[in-house]
């Protein structure tokens, strides 16, 4: 078998395009994945015009809130292109220089302050967009909605915090400033204590009235104490308590690397094994080899071995490329090897079955792409994304092909916090046996037609 393996490697070396592709493919994938997961998603460029007069503040309870640094906060989220006028903002949007323009009108703070008066007005910001295509429109809408959502949340938190402070002042007492002069507030708690202390000194006919005042201050104190946390909740009405019913999933970055590694392994192994086996027929060497030199099973095993060996090298090369961008846990290298070898074995066995069935290099290449690409995509469909019946169908289909268990094995090998590797390895072992049997059967008619 080693001489056949040597021969196939010699043939591979003689095909510069194929060899270059085998090296270039993982490098390209590594670069793409590396750049994609090591860089920020990118801030959209937004023209920004702040017309609010300097010094304008949001007022709450008769006091002005601290300056909120609107410019700074907004420009953290988007790449602000500061403009001097609305016309300039509109022009930049029209020319496509920026995704949108955000204008904070001069009366924004006044309108915000009017919310706590008897004649509230609606605070508005101006947004200029150029929705030249639906995708761009969707992106702009999402970005603006996210930006305003954050602004609203921030303002609500500021108001709630200030209102809570005043409530505490009413309940517990203290001091605050009005026009620069400190004003002492007695507070309900102290008022009730004073009234309790005064009660014995009052004539009995006035005590019932005083008792009513005392009850009022006590009730007010207790209930307003309860109101304070309620006002705090206004800033964030619904909290998130996240629970997952599935096993812990790998971080997105690790999953992306696992997908890239499995895709690399799939294409290299599947195409190489299927093509190499079909080549034996095209070169007319299959009858000569199996006419007494080697058994069909040996030939099949040699092709699977070739696929595993080359797939391992190319996949490790890809992971080494990704390492330039993202830190990988090399202490798990042993598990990587196990996962890649098992995944490679499954895919190589599938490639052998495909090569034996198709028997023609061009047909087999086409078939390999036609099968592996849709199966790989279907393997990435999450539950809930499609109907239950369709998802069951997808699960069955993807379980019959080694891509998904290979992906699960490689994900488990890369992610220390992920699910175990045992299940995917067992799945792959079953597929190796099944595809080897199919390949062996298909080889029976390989030479006869």
């Amino acid at each position: 078998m080693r001489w056949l393996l040597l021969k196939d490697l010699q043939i591979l070396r003689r095909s510069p395009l194929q060899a270059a592709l085998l090296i270039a493919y993982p490098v390209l994938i590594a670069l793409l994945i590396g750049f994609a997961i090591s860089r920020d998603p990118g801030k959209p460029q937004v023209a920004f015009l702040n017309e609010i007069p300097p010094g304008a503040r949001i007022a709450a309870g008769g006091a002005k809130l601290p300056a909120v640094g609107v410019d700074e906060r907004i420009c953290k989220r988007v790449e602000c292109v500061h403009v001097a006028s609305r016309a300039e903002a509109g022009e930049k949007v029209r020319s496509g220089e920026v995704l949108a323009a955000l204008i904070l009108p001069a009366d924004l703070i006044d309108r915000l302050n009017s919310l706590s008066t008897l004649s509230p007005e609606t605070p508005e910001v101006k947004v200029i967009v150029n929705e030249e295509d639906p995708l761009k429109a969707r992106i702009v809408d999402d970005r603006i909605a996210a930006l305003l959502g954050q602004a609203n949340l921030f303002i609500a938190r500021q108001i709630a915090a200030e209102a809570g402070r005043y409530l505490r002042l009413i309940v517990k007492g203290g001091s605050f400033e009005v026009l620069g002069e400190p004003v002492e507030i007695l507070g309900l708690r102290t008022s009730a204590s004073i009234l309790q202390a005064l009660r014995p000194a009052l004539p009995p006919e006035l005590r019932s009235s005083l008792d009513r005042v005392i009850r009022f201050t006590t009730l007010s104190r207790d209930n307003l104490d309860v109101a304070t946390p309620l006002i705090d909740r206004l800033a964030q009405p619904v909290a998130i308590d996240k629970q997952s019913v599935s096993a812990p999933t790998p971080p997105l970055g690790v999953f992306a690397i696992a997908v890239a590694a499995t895709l690399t392994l799939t294409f290299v192994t599947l195409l190489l094994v299927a093509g190499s086996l079909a080549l034996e027929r095209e070169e007319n060497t299959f009858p000569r080899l199996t006419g007494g030199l080697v058994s069909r099973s040996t030939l099949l095993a040699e092709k699977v071995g070739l696929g595993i060996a080359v797939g391992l090298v190319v996949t490790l090369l890809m992971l080494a490329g990704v390492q330039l961008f993202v830190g990988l846990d090399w202490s798990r290298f042993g598990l990587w090897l196990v996962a890649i070898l098992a995944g490679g074995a499954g895919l190589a066995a599938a490639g052998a079955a495909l090569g034996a069935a198709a028997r023609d290099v061009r047909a087999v290449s086409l078939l390999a792409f036609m099968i592996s690409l849709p199966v790989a995509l279907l393997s990435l469909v999450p539950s809930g994304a499609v109907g239950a019946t369709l998802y069951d169908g997808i699960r069955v289909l993807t379980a019959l092909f080694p891509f998904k268990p290979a992906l699960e094995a490689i994900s488990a090998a890369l992610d220390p916090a992920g699910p175990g590797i045992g299940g995917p390895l067992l799945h792959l072992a079953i597929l190796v046996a099944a595809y080897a049997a199919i390949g062996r059967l298909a080889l029976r008619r390989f030479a006869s037609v």
Partner: protein
Amino acid sequence: MVGTAVAALEARKLVKRYGQREALKGVDFAAHPGELLAVIGPNGAGKTTLLSILAGTLPPDGGEVHLPNGDVGWVPQQAALYRRLTVEENLLLFARLEKREEPRAAVEEMLDLTGLRERRGDVVARLSGGNQQRINIAIGLLARPVALLLDEPSVGLDPRQRARLWEFVSALAGGGTTVIFSTHDIQEAERYGQRLLVLADGESLFDGSPGELRTAVRGETPEAASSDFETAFVAFLQHRGH
């Protein structure tokens, strides 16, 4: 050496069926050391099936192949070579697979035999059809077979390449190797075949020398017998309903 008592290869009542169709219907013959045996017949006669069974690449449905003194070397019709490997790499691979004790010495021997020593480093795809066929035959000889089976070895070769090929094959037979070849070229069979095995629809119709075939035709259609060998052969088949 023809006519030696011990046959190098014997086929006994070989039968092969493809579904309902019988490709071989109990074919019997024996070939002796140094003999050049041509298997001829119309398309679909069963020539390639017979050679494939003799080579062991196709199992028969009935009968047996007897090889008392060793193995056969199989040279399929289309060159069974790795076209991206060099002449030397092809020979070395098959010498190793044949488990020759000294594969490199075997390669040198075959390079001398084929006269392709100068082209040893050339990729096979760059060789002419004739030279590819020589390497193809050399690979068949690597196992040092007692009988060499050639399936239409001269197909696609120009007259000069054919002449060189037959010179090479005749030299092998002269060295004691039994050569069994199939061909569509009746003139070639007459010229190089010491014995002819005529197959038609899986049946063996004749087993003898070209002269004996012509004699047989003379008794049936005298005018055809005095014509060229191909005409005589066609008359022979027609007389038997083929």
